[in-house]
């Protein structure tokens, strides 16, 4: 009997104690490790894509589309309204431009100035951009308008972050 059952009392106690001790240690360490590597586990803080409009609504003429994104500003979280100028270019490709002037950040408007139809016009300092968003030389802005990251899914246009060219 003693030979068949090779686990002695001492061994048995050893095993159980290590086992229980191990669980306790793991219970304590796990949250600590989680805290330590928390930033890795967090989902990408990159802004998600937001549905903006139906693709079928997009015309050759730029349309101003508003959408809301969640913005975290320090500890203050808020919903911010953003807008984009959306149109189809000659090649029938969808273009979504940020309306923020590259000069000092005013909001540009499409062909709002009678003297410059078919251009984006900034009311602040007369900055102008052609339809593809390229700044007109001789006006204050020094860079073309930012372009939104985008994707089309199930007939809807999704916009992400505006990116400089």
């Amino acid at each position, binding site marked *: 009997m003693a030979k068949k059952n090779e686990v002695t009392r001492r061994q048995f106690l050893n095993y159980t104690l290590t086992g229980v001790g191990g669980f306790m240690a793991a219970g304590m360490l796990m949250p600590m490790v989680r805290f330590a590597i928390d930033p890795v586990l967090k989902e990408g803080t990159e802004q998600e894509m937001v549905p903006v409009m139906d693709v079928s609504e997009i015309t050759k003429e730029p349309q101003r589309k508003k959408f809301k994104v969640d913005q975290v500003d320090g500890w203050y979280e808020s919903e911010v309204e953003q807008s984009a100028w959306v149109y189809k270019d000659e090649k029938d490709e969808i273009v979504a431009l940020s309306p923020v002037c590259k000069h*000092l950040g*005013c909001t540009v408007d499409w062909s709002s100035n009678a003297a410059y139809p078919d251009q984006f016009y*900034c009311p*602040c300092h007369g900055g102008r951009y052609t339809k593809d968003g390229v700044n007109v030389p001789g006006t204050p802005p020094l860079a073309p308008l930012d372009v939104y990251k985008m994707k089309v899914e199930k007939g809807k246009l999704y916009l992400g972050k505006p990116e400089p060219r």
Partner: protein
Amino acid sequence: MKWIASDIETYAKEKEYVDTIVVPLIPFGLENNLKGTVSAGEYISIISHELERQLRGRLLLLPPFTYLNSEPMEEKVKRLAEWHNEVIGNGASYVVYLTSDVEWKNAEDRLEDTLVWLPSIPLEHMDNEYKMETVSTQVKQVLQIVTKKWQNSPK
């Protein structure tokens, strides 16, 4: 540009482009019509921030000019004139006051600058969509007032 450090840095650098100052006029008082006072102030502060967002490159939004409801108009006009002198003395060409306090309307001719008076709309019961719509239509009209001023004397 807002009255925050990062914007003021740009302002200091690009001062020649920023010639318009916006000052919200916001009353304060805890006695009667408390809620009305607060919501009128909140409304104006929302409008002025939205206006700043649209035209941020050419205007500087100052911290609000606040006053007690009971402060006599003479005093307020005098204090505001000092603000006017301060900003005009520092290179601004246009000053726009935004308020929904109807009392300023009576003193408009004593002010040296443009007073934009907007009737306050209680936004707190509106849903978000409608709220933004309302604010943006209101701001559009203020925008027109400001840009018209610019067109009359282009810089």
